[in-house]
């Protein structure tokens, strides 16, 4: 049983603030993903939970116990590093066994426990090799096995997939998801890849510049982004954000006019919609502009155009044909639109 609680956790290096007063409750057995661009404080947050960085302010609680002053070894956490952190002088078997040995776990149980971990990550053929003789994916699986062998109360994973190639990333991702489900251990996972976050997480914490932008399930974050940062970060392609004026339910901007928005808000706003919710029309639409570029993705074509002070992406059927410079119209219904405050970027509820 391990819940993790962060209360007003702040990290400062001199004048620079890495993490700003972070509050977070992580439930037992939850898979929580910290998501954000590089330098947003997500890794620092995780390292503070691990004990590799000290928090400048605030309390970190694991299982209800304050751990701020505990050494990493006394926090009962296991960590998987981006660059593996395997011991190069030990074989795979000894690498996985190392935490048991250091923690003086009864030696008669070692073989059984290491074997179980090896089975889980399917490394049976490699146990006598040294890490240098393994591929990147195999190394990361050794690191995973080393983390699970001790059955810790918390898993911490620091971008474990970012050193792997695209194909291996997908299969290892599935493996991690499955492992976490079977072991039912509270997990914090750090990534800058929003697809990883969407696929793995029970809940996602989107961070930027040391502050939490939104906490929620992947669907919540996708459907109801709290601000323009989250809207622009989640989804592929990211949400289109146009600037313009709204008055009596009508949004007007450069080459854009959308009617029937259910809001009483008045004045300058940012309007957002997703490429996959909109469509292309040759006759007429809410947006009329020229084709900026075309990207064929296979199942569809993404049409980019200049309007509303930004580059917009609109999804078109894969049969859609046009050349750069052709006039096109995009249909954007009022129901799919999100409104954000023009200055603060915060979401405006209808």
């Amino acid at each position: 049983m391990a819940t993790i609680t962060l209360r007003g956790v702040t990290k400062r290096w001199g004048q620079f603030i890495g993490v700003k007063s972070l509050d977070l409750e992580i439930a037992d057995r939850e898979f929580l993903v910290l998501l954000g661009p590089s330098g947003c404080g997500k890794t620092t947050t995780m390292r503070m939970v691990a004990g590799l960085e000290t928090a400048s302010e605030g309390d970190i609680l694991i299982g209800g116990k304050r751990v701020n002053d505990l050494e990493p070894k006394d926090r009962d956490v296991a960590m998987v590093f981006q660059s593996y952190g395997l011991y190069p002088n030990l074989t795979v078997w000894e690498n996985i066994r190392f935490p048991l040995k250091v923690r003086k776990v009864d030696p008669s149980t070692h073989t059984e426990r290491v074997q179980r971990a090896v089975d889980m990550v399917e490394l049976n053929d490699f146990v006598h090799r040294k890490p240098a003789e393994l591929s990147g994916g195999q190394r990361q699986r050794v690191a995973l096995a080393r983390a699970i062998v001790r059955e810790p109360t918390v898993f911490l994973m620091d971008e474990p997939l970012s050193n792997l190639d695209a194909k291996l990333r997908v299969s290892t991702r599935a493996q991690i998801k499955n492992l976490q489900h079977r072991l039912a251990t509270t997990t914090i996972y750090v990534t800058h890849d929003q697809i990883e976050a969407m696929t793995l997480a029970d809940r996602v914490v989107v961070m930027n510049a040391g502050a939490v932008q939104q906490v929620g399930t992947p669907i919540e974050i996708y459907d109801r982004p709290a601000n323009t940062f989250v809207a622009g970060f989640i989804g592929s392609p990211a949400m289109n954000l146009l600037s313009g004026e709204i008055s009596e339910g009508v949004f007007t901007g450069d080459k854009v006019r959308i009617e029937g928005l259910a809001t009483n808000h008045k004045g300058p706003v940012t309007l957002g919609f997703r490429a996959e919710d909109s469509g292309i029309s040759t006759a007429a639409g809410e947006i009329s502009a020229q084709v900026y570029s075309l990207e064929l993705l296979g199942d569809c074509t993404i049409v980019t155009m200049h309007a509303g002070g930004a580059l917009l992406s609109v999804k078109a059927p894969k049969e859609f044909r046009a050349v750069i410079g052709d006039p096109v119209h995009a249909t954007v219904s009022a129901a799919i639109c999100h409104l954000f405050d023009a200055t603060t970027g915060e979401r405006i509820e209808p």
Partner: protein
Amino acid sequence: MSDTTMRQPFGLRIASVSFLIFWSFLALFPLLWIFTMSFKLPLDAFSESALDVITGPITRERRGGISILDICIAGAIFYAILKVPGLFGRRAVRFFARKRAGLAVLGVAYAAWLYVLVTGFGVTGPSVLGALFGGLLVWLFGFSGEDDDEGGLLGTLLAAVFYVLAAGAGLWFVLPPLLSAVDSAALQIPLVDYLAHPLIGATTEHYMSVWFDRGFYRNFLNTMLVTAGVTTVSLTVGTLAGYGLARSTSTVAFWLLILALVFRALPHSVLVTGYLPPFIASRDILQPLWDAPIIGSFLGLFTATPPTLYGQPVAVIAVLVSINQPFTIWMLRSFFQSIPKELDEAARVDGCSDMEAFRRVIMPVMWPGVVTTGLFSFLLAYNDYLICSLLLNSQNQTMVPSITQFFNSETTTTDQVQAVAAAVSITAPLFLLVMAFQKQIVSGLTAGAVKG
């Protein structure tokens, strides 16, 4: 790197190979030459004809020599001695470390060797015996902890020392009678007897008189004491400081490193000038400590009065360490920096304290770096002339400065050949050392980033 990019033009290859041959000849020639000379009587050693220096006709006539058969047998035995540790060493250490019976056998063998050493060579002082026995005890109990580190570092080290001593004793006591027995047997067989006739004149009398009559063994022991002290202190301080400085980002660390560089730049004689007066006056300087209430009675257990450090090996160790330390810190720091920080962090999350992470995770990876740095420290202490000759009195003198005792206004040719024999005696251990650690040295010198 493909083969084509590294392929040399034919002319370049000829030039580089011939330069290599020329260079190794140039470097090796003096060594080989003094090695040959040291086994000859002065008449041969300083003969006008180079061929006479090599074959030594007068030495062969008066003292006998070695035959082709001798060379072959001795060569085969040396080869075996060099190869055996590589083939069986690890397995033997593991066996002795795990099995109680093996431990007992090794313990008895060690005790027997000690007995021979003490009675045979008349090494005085129960202190030596006590120290060695203490080492044996540490070794016996040092094993019982870890079950899988292939015998442990201490065990490997002691096994290596034991092997060198045993091999040395075997060569000393067994080889000469064996060779003469084989020769006399072979002389009875026609045709084969040509191989058994003395071919090259050789005598070990210069070595005998240098080592025993002139007491060179004492200089050898002093050198071992000084080098062991310097290497141990330099490496202990160097690894800890290097690790700390490599992992620290503070400006203090930076300035400490710069300060170390400044110390490294000081001329050695300047350091000696600074140290000399306090070493001479150390009895007066240390007296207050001996007069102090509790510390004094504790120190009094060792010596009644404070020691005069001048002339003692401790003084030389202190000066050589202070000369050497900046270099070891810089070198070890760069080795530590090549070890990714994730390794420390993984170890700490896996359950190690800082010190355990250093000992169990970082040091095993650092091993080649430590061996390489240790070798450089060893060489500095081993080859030092200035500081040893200035700070040591004659009975504590190390090998290199003691060569000067062979040269004075009444130097005879025998003295000169003895000096040559002493020079060869100084060089030989270096060769053994480099051969024993060649693998670690190469990997230490070429080590890049340690990939985990």
